[in-house]
């Protein structure tokens, strides 16, 4: 066990919110086809309000702080917020599209001791990347900003989302990251929009792409290890939790709404009306999320993948129940191991049209 995972366990036991993701704005200069956000400003927190929230987060024990959006640099006070956060000794990670980062911004992020900058790049080809972001010239500007950040010695991650519209460019995008000398992450998850609109889910890649993805050692490391059948489900797994959402992590929107995670749109309170600690420790919704163990999950508790699945309670919530399955994770578990999930077997059985109740004659 690493020291960091020991600290995670300790934070979990103490109920400390070790990590907070805060979106400082939903405004953006790109209009990515897969984005789940609504970009109009509906009353963002002011500089003073965000600083006040940061004070409260430091007081509550938050160590890892992610600034994201929208595009963070759409706020003129963004670097002031980063400076304030660093004075409070947060470990700061910034997610951005980078198109507004030039040498001066890169230098300042470096001076402030930002731990990592993550930039979204969807293809190595401008015609594909710019078509996804709907901002002409955006690939060049993002790549330029990566070079500025790298030249300052910052740790940079290139983050790609695999979709139907860029699936054939995955290798090229990964090669671009290598050429730039930065880390690379790939996520095949496309989530419904915040207003519940699921039309963008058509951008999700199909089964064949997932199979290819999980068989690529460049992405998953040891393929045999990554794709091995799940370990038998035991009591430790059943007594455990799905993920850190609401346990050691949460999300705050630009309007002050607090959620268990950026992918878990269950409102738990608002920092404009309540203290963060009151929401974190006393919100009934947070308490409910925190109470759910694997054994309480309606379908997943009986699934062979229960101990190794990436089940997202937020996606499950959007699908209908925070205790239910997250179908896209069922698909991933299946394509990783070749073993169908309990949810998939249940759906197949229902689709086969078998009787809901089987009545057998009594044997006498």
């Amino acid at each position, binding site marked *: 066990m690493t020291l*960091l995972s020991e*600290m995670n366990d300790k934070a979990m036991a103490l109920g*400390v919110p070790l990590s907070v993701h805060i979106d400082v704005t939903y405004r953006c200069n790109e209009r990515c086809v897969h984005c789940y956000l609504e970009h109009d400003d509906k009353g963002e927190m002011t500089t003073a309000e965000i600083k006040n929230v940061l004070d409260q987060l430091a007081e509550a*024990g938050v*160590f890892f702080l992610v600034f994201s959006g929208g595009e963070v640099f759409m706020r003129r006070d963004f670097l002031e917020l980063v400076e304030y956060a660093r004075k409070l*000794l947060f470990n700061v990670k910034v997610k951005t599209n980078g198109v507004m980062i030039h040498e001066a911004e890169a230098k300042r992020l470096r*001076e402030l*001791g930002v731990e990592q900058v993550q930039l979204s790049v969807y293809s190595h080809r401008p015609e594909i990347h710019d078509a996804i972001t709907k901002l002409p010239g955006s690939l060049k500007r993002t790549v330029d900003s990566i070079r500025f950040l790298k030249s300052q010695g910052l*740790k940079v991650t290139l983050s790609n989302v695999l979709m139907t519209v860029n699936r054939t460019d995955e290798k090229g995008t990964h090669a671009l990251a290598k050429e730039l000398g930065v880390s690379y992450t790939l996520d095949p998850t496309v989530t419904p929009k915040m207003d519940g609109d699921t039309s963008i889910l058509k951008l999700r890649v199909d089964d064949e792409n997932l199979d290819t993805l999980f068989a690529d050692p460049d992405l998953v490391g040891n393929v045999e290890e990554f794709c091995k059948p799940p370990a038998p489900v035991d009591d430790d797994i059943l007594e455990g939790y799905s993920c850190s959402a609401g346990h050691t992590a949460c999300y705050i929107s630009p309007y002050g709404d607090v959620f268990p995670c950026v992918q878990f749109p269950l409102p738990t309170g608002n920092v404009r009306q309540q203290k963060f600690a009151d929401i974190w420790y006393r919100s009934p919704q947070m308490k409910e999320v925190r109470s759910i163990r694997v054994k309480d999950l309606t379908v997943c508790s009986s699934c062979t993948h229960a101990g190794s699945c990436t089940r997202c309670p937020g996606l499950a919530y959007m699908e209908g129940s925070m205790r239910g399955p997250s179908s896209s994770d069922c698909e991933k578990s299946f394509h990783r191991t070749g073993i169908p999930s309990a949810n998939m077997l249940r759906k197949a059985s229902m689709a086969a049209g078998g009787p809901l109740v089987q009545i057998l004659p009594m044997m006498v």
Partner: protein
Amino acid sequence: MSAEPMAETYIARSTTIAARMLGGEMMIMSAVDSTFFTLNEVATVIWQAADGHTPLSEIVERRVCEEFEIAPDMAQRDAADFVNQLSQHGILLVSDQPIPESKPVAAGKP
């Protein structure tokens, strides 16, 4: 012939680290090399007292020896080792002169 007086050591917390208390331990992550540390109670006291202008010997004498009832010789030796380790990771700045309060500075070599 009189002995040369020992040079004082001054320590200041680096501005390039992230730090937070968790259950009585100080978590620290270096932005220089992303090394993650936890400090025990005694080390946390020294780290918190590292204001750049109080000599290390005084911090150890007034905070460590008195609060934790540790023998002065042992406490000074352990503190010197601890300061040496943290300074190698850029977490503590060490000087034989008082260290002025610094503005945020670049974290390691570009």
